[in-house]
């Protein structure tokens, strides 16, 4: 079917566009700025906010590395150092990685599945505002010199009232409970969107792998985050009201904290890694000019990692004195969880070797990711071996491993995504030469920063020490690591400058500068408010490659394109075989998600400061916020 439109059809298309624009455009002004429910605006905000926290976390790490560059330095005292390394971990995991990866998801999942928005637009907006509020909440701790100072995993009894009476730990617990609301709401949004909003014809085995990656991430969040929330609530009860969950003298157990935390904490690292895998699976086919090899195995791999990842948390506790028989089961599971990741790695390698790669920035970052992640993966397997783990647990070998897997599987894919999808978001190409410079600086800097840390761990350097003696032989490796960190930082800076320069002065990108295969390239660059002129019907895994009628950005109705111009609507389809089921009318912009967030922020501070009267008032205000959110507008009857 050709895309040539009869004169009659183009007149139809024009009026369709006018009507869609009228319905979907958000009028400028404060109301729209506070109340936007457009997934693209929200996704972009997540991206910018997350990247701002990335820079903050990066500055924290450079301060840490400066203090550790040589023995017995005095750049930072112990309290400052302890707050910085704790906030570095908290920032990178919770305020950078998860938001940016959900931000890309927010922006691109509806586009890739052919929908006009996420399933819960106001919940989407709410999730963003809560991210901002909890980030402000957590960082306000620096203003009072009381940032969390017991590491990102915050073990008791040190984090109990007896040993850290000051509010550093309350900041941690309240902040993470608060942030958890955002992550959980976002996750539910992804799950329902991906299951129910796909374009007709996008049956289960035609779903883009990036979307599978976001689904795997979301499913993990829903079941893992309650563990962190519970751990934090119990900690607050112990600290503020003298409960005894973690108190060994009164029938409690400090290990309860460790179990609850790591039941969340291990899936958390896969929450960070799986979207990155999805990004690689999205970028490789475009840049090697062939479909992905082993689609089914990759998808099974993503979901298996998500599932098995719930069964290995005790491997963070191999040194606490549990019986060997218990540890052995966990060890086995920890070895086996490597397999679904290996499947994905070899599927990518097969695709790369079978295709014709073009080594520009997007693909370079993906290749860097694979190399770095595999190194992190093999050291991870080393940790599954109990005696070796017990030797290097809590040493710099762990620090090396975790940065290889996390920077590998999150940061490098995020930078690949910036170069690959940046043009879709801004409508302009980034400078590719600068992209290559950024890549090489980051790749060399990263490896110089973190490879020596494997050796430091083997040479006996524990984690989280603010200084070390000159006669231990650790100085040279630490200096190399610090130099590498600064080179990495420069490389990151190059991309940041590139982004801001290109978004106003880059070459125009057009709808589809790379000839991509999935539906985000069906939309314009940047996409219109309503995403697509017609909601397409897809007939394969690579619709943009196989369905020429999509090239014009408006699949005609006779090919299955649905304009859906009546109201603020999108199409809901069946879960497995994506048959059109209902027309869903989406909510318009609403300021209530923002107002509810403000009430919750007040509640967070009230709890932090033990102001129970204010807490009750804030709870009442929050209920009011929910009522305002759900109060029907314009009509009495239920929609």
């Amino acid at each position: 079917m050709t895309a040539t439109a009869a004169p009659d059809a183009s007149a139809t298309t024009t009026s369709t566009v006018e009507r869609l624009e009228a319905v979907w455009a958000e009028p400028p002004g404060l109301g729209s700025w506070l109340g936007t429910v457009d997934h693209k605006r929200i996704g972009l905000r997540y991206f910018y906010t997350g990247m701002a926290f990335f820079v903050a976390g990066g500055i924290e790490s450079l301060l840490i590395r400066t203090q550790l560059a040589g023995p017995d330095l005095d750049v930072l005292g112990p309290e400052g150092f302890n707050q910085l390394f704790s906030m570095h971990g908290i920032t990178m995991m919770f305020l950078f990685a998860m938001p940016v990866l959900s931000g890309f998801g927010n922006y691109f999942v509806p586009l890739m599945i052919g929908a006009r928005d996420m399933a819960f637009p106001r919940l989407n907006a709410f999730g963003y505002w809560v991210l901002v509020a909890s980030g402000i909440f957590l960082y306000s701790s620096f203003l009072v010199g009381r940032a969390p100072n017991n590491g990102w995993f915050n073990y008791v009894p040190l984090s109990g009232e007896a040993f850290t009476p000051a509010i550093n730990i309350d900041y941690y617990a309240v902040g993470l409970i608060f942030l958890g609301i955002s992550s959980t709401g976002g996750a539910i949004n992804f799950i329902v969107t991906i299951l129910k909003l796909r374009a007709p014809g996008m049956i289960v085995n035609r779903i883009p792998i990036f979307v599978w990656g976001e689904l795997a991430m979301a499913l993990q969040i829903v079941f893992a985050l309650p563990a962190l929330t519970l751990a934090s609530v119990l900690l607050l009860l112990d600290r503020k009201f003298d409960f005894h969950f973690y108190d060994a003298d009164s029938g409690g157990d400090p290990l309860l904290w460790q179990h609850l935390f790591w039941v969340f904490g291990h899936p958390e690292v896969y929450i960070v890694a799986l979207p990155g895998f999805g990004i690689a699976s999205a970028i490789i086919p475009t840049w090697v000019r062939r479909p992905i090899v082993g689609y089914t195995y990759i998808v099974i791999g993503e979901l298996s990692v998500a599932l098995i990842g719930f069964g290995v948390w005790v491997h963070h506790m191999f040194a606490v004195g549990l019986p060997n028989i218990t540890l052995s089961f966990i060890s086995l599971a920890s070895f086996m969880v490597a397999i679904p990741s290996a499947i994905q790695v070899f599927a990518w390698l097969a695709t790369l070797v079978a295709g014709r790669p073009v080594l520009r920035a997007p693909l370079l970052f993906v290749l860097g990711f694979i190399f770095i992640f595999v190194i992190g993966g093999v050291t991870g397997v080393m940790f599954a071996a109990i005696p070796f783990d017990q030797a290097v647990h809590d040493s710099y070998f762990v620090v090396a491993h975790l940065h290889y897997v996390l920077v590998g599987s999150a940061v490098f894919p995020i930078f690949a995504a910036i170069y690959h999808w940046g043009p879709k978001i801004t409508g302009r190409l980034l400078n590719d030469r600068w992209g290559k410079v950024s890549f090489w600086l980051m790749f060399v800097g990263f490896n110089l920063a973190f490879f020596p840390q494997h050796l430091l761990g083997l040479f006996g350097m524990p984690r989280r020490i603010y200084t070390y003696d000159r006669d231990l032989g650790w100085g040279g490796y630490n200096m190399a690591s610090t130099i590498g960190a600064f080179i990495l930082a420069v490389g990151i800076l190059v991309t940041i400058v590139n982004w801001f320069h290109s978004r106003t002065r880059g070459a125009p990108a057009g709808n589809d500068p790379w000839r991509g295969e999935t539906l985000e390239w069906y939309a314009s660059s940047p996409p219109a408010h309503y995403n697509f002129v017609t909601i397409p019907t897809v007939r394969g895994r690579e619709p943009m490659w196989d369905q020429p009628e999509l090239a014009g950005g408006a699949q005609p109705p006779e090919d299955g394109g649905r304009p859906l111009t009546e109201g603020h609507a999108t199409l809901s389809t069946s879960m497995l075989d994506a048959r059109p089921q209902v027309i869903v009318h989406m909510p318009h912009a609403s300021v209530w998600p923002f107002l509810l967030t403000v009430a919750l922020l007040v509640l967070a501070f009230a709890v932090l400061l033990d102001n129970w009267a204010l807490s009750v008032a804030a709870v009442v205000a929050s209920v009011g916020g929910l009522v305002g959110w759900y109060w029907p507008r314009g009509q009495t009857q239920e929609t």
Partner: protein
Amino acid sequence: MVAGCGGDTPSVLDPRSDDARRVEGMWWVLFWISCAVVAVVTGFLLAAARRRRAELHVDDQIDRRPVSWGDRFVVIAGAAVPGGILAGTFAFSLVVLNDMGSGDRNLEIEVEGHTWWWEVRYPNGAVTANEIRIPVGETVELALPTADVIHSFWVPELQVKKDHIPGADNRLSVVADHAGRFRGQCAEFCGLQHAHMEIMVEALPADEFDDWLQREAQPAPEPDGADAADGRRIFERASCAGCHTIRGTSAEGTLGPDLTHLANRETLGAGVVPFTPGALDDFITNPQDAKPGVSMPPTELTPDQVDAVVAYLTELE
């Protein structure tokens, strides 16, 4: 480089006991397998790079031909081969685990973790701090209680680590091949001065160890000279005695380390400064300089009084 730079590097790769050697051996097996995996993956990445084209064109032909070897490759290289290697490595790790910590324990020593020092108690009543003497070649069982938060006992050349958990009764067996000093430090973040919680294990030949243990259990020697006698009197009456014990005197405080044989120690503050009379003087005057955040406050004594106390303490061998 790999065996550890300098004699003082507490390296996992410089084992001085059977258990440490098992771990080191395991490391090399894991290391070479890992190198092979990384080499294979890198090989594929380079092979892909060799197939590169210079430019991406929007009207490129998309290669839709199925990759006949694709599925088989993914299953074999991605699942079957790794599965086999992983299963084998797991089995190997269980064998090593089973061999660890074997050997009859002849001596039990309690090493209690405090923030930020180690209290070391022997069965015969000897009590010291931060330095643990053991007999060469004999398996010692360390009991690992904690007085406060979670600590972790790690002397890389001798043994893997184990945590001190409130409410748990964790044990670690330690044996040294030969005489010498083996350095370690706390490996679980325990607050402000976690970085300054050094452990020094010294292995002595059996008869030397027995002599040492017997002497260590004795009360402190009588002061030799007027200055030292003054120092002892001041120590007993000032706040020092409220926190520290010197067996044989009226100082019976238990908040800080036992100082009965302080002069035998190499360092002060669990490794933060070497033990010299000058360093001791500074430490007593204001321990917050050397180790900010420790429980010990700046002294209320005059400099002359501090001199006398130093004169006494430097005699306590």
